[in-house]
Structure formats: C-alpha cells, structure tokens
C-alpha cells in the first residue's frame, strides 16, 4: 500500500516509483531465510505458491482418481475430460504407444503450471510461473526427461548419433554438430522464457493499469481502466490455460523427437 500511495502521490520521481510498484509485485521475496552450505535456499513467496498449488492438486486429484470408476462422475468426470483431451491431442500424436509411459510427467506438468498460472490471478497471491527461476526449473526437468527418454529408447551412443541428421556431407559436420548441440539447449531455454514472459507480461499490464487509476484519480479514467483490467484478467485466464497447454505439448514433442529420432 505504501507503494501505491507514493506512486500516486509523489510529483517527483513518479515514473521510477511506478516501476518500483510493478516490480514489487512481480518479483519474489523471501519469507523464511535459509542458507545451506553457502547456497541461498530461502523459502520465498513463489515457493509457497508452488506448495499451495501442489496441495490443491494432490487434494483434488486424489479425491477424483484414488478409486477411479469406469463410469466417471462429478469431479473425476471434469478432470477426466481434460486428461483424455490431452491424451488424444498432446500425447498420442507425438508419443504414440509410449504415451502411457510419459503421461504422468506431462499431466503433472500441465496441471502444476495451470494451477500456478491461475493462482497468480487471485488477489494478494503471486504468480510462481512468472518467475524465471521456476520456469527454468520446469524446463530443466523437461530437458532431463527428454534426454532420458532418448537414451532409453535408442541407447546412449545411438541417441548421440541420432542427434545429427543422417546423410549429411562430412564437410558440413563441423558446422552442424555445434548447431545441433546448441539447438538441444535453445529449445528448452525457449520453453522457460516463453512461459515466464507470458505470465509476467499479463501481470505487468494489470499492475500498470492499476497505476493509471491512482495516477489520474478520476472516476471516468478509473472506470475505463477497470474495464481494461477486467478484460486483461479474463485474458490472463485464457493465457494461463494456453501456456500450460503449450508447455505440455512442446514437452511431448521434444520427448517424441528424442524417442523417434528418424523423423
């Protein structure tokens, strides 16, 4: 609230304070300071949000699926329709018969990211997926799963050899080998940045619109801006769904590419 007042009230340093207000709400803050062997392992606000999301997921999904019925009802029906959609649209086309093997990872990733995205819209909370550290961790996990899937299916050397497209002239190899190795990592870096940037952008817009209200202090501007905030918030729900979906489908595609290297 102090950020509000200073941002809205101060004449000098207006813009800088506005930026501070936005950053204040987007950046992570440690809640419990923890240091272990020189590493900063503090429990931050985003970590707490991750735990809340996990708790929600464990509670609802366990209730829905601990004793699954052949004829689904209520909560399990709701989740089942989402899961069956993901299975037919995200997993089967890229993983084929292997889809059951990687379904637990992909489903967990989807629901985890989705719940984190949506929790970010609750006032007073924070968007864990709008934190580059969180998205880097998620992308790294996908990277590890992709490499393990590739090695498991093609053998270690088979997988390494399969990374370079077959039938290339030898003189291109010095260029292609680094390109392929870089490509291996950029795919997952892009995965991390895409999710992070999308989640941050929406919140920056929402907080910037909020700032406009307190800067102009006018009912008319406030009304229009509020409508804008409402619109962006609704858009955020859509973006939260889409980004969770994109992260999952890209993970599925990367796993599929590592498993079936011939195409």
């Amino acid at each position, binding site marked *: 609230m102090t950020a509000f007042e200073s941002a809205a009230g101060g004449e000098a340093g207006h813009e800088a304070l506005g930026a501070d207000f936005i*950053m204040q709400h*987007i*950046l*992570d803050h440690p809640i419990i300071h*923890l240091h272990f062997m020189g*590493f*900063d*392992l*503090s*429990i*931050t606000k*985003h*970590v707490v949000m*991750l*735990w809340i999301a*996990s708790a929600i*997921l*464990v509670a609802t*999904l*366990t209730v*829905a*699926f*601990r*004793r*699954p*019925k*052949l004829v689904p009802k209520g909560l399990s029906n709701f989740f*089942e329709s989402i*899961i*069956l959609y993901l299975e037919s649209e995200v997993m089967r086309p890229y993983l084929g018969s292997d889809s*059951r093997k990687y*379904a*637990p*990872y992909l*489903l*967990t*990733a989807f629901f*985890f990211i989705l719940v984190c995205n949506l929790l970010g819209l609750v006032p007073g909370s924070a968007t*864990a997926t709008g*934190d*580059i*550290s*969180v998205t*880097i*961790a*998620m992308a*790294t*996990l996908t990277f590890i799963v992709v490499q393990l899937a590739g090695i498991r299916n093609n053998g270690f050397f088979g997988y390494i050899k399969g990374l370079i497209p077959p039938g290339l002239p030898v003189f291109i190899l010095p260029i292609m080998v680094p390109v392929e190795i870089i490509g291996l990592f950029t795919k997952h870096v892009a995965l991390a940045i895409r999710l992070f940037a999308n989640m*941050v952008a929406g919140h920056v817009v929402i907080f910037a619109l909020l700032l406009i209200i307190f800067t102009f202090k006018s009912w008319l501007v406030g009304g229009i801006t509020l409508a804008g905030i409402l619109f962006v918030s609704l858009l955020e729900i859509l973006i939260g769904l889409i980004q969770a979906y994109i992260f999952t489908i890209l993970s599925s595609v990367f796993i599929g590419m590592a498993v079936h290297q011939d195409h």
Partner: protein
Amino acid sequence: MELLSPALGTIFWTALTFVLLLVILRKLAWGPLLAMLDERETKIRESLEKADAAQKETEQALARNQEMVEQAKKEAQELLSKSRKAAEASKEEIVQKAHAEATKMIDKAKKEIDGEREKAVEEIRSQTAELSVMIASKLIGKSLSAEDHKDIIDSSLKKMVGTN
C-alpha cells in the same frame, strides 16, 4: 536486471516440489486413472464384440425360425395333400367293395330263387302224378292191380317228362 536473474534456491525448491508432486500424483492419481482407462478400453471393446456376437446370433436364430416356419408350412401342405389322396383312395375302395358285395348278394339271391323253383317244379310233378291216378281211377271206376298202377304211372311219367 533482477527480473531475469534466476535464483538458485527457487530453482532447487521448484524442482524438488515438482518431483515430489510427480511421485505423489503418480501413485495416488495417474496410476489408478491410467489403469482404469485401460480397463475401460478393454471393457468397451469386449462389450462391442459381445453385442456383435449377440446380434449375429439373433439374426441366425431368426433365419432358423423362418426356415422352420417354411418347413412346417411345406410339411402341412404335404400332409394335407397326402391325406386327401388317401381319403380319395379309400372312398374308391369302399365303393368298389360295396359294388362287389351287392353283386355277390344278387347272385346268391338268383341261385336261391332257382333252387326254390326247381323244388316247386318237383312237388308239382309228384302231386300231378297222384292227382292223375286219382282222376284215372275215378274215371275208369274200377281199381287196377298194383302192377297195372305201376305201368300206367311209369308210362304217363315218361310221357310228361318227354313233353316237358
């Protein structure tokens, strides 16, 4: 920029949280769910196969019934015509028999009539002889000896038979 600098602690916690969540959900949610989906798939396939088989069986039964009805109709027709033929034959036979019987009876009656007539003729003949003797004795007025009687009767009998 602080926004783009990753914090090692958060990365660690995220990875740990996610892996734990994956393990828990795999055991409590995805495992049972995926097993159930497989079960449902097989059940649906089985039900469809069963329904198919049942339908085929029904069709077969229907065809069999149709065939049976057809057969029964044919048999009934056959039976009817056969019995009609038999009735015709027996009627013919009865008529024939009756005819034969009637002919036999007529024959018998004719024979009997012939016999009776013969007997009557014989009787008339003997009575005629006596009468003629009586008439002759009365006419002559004198009795004849036994030999004379005999001679006269024989000669007149011979005459009668010869004229007869």
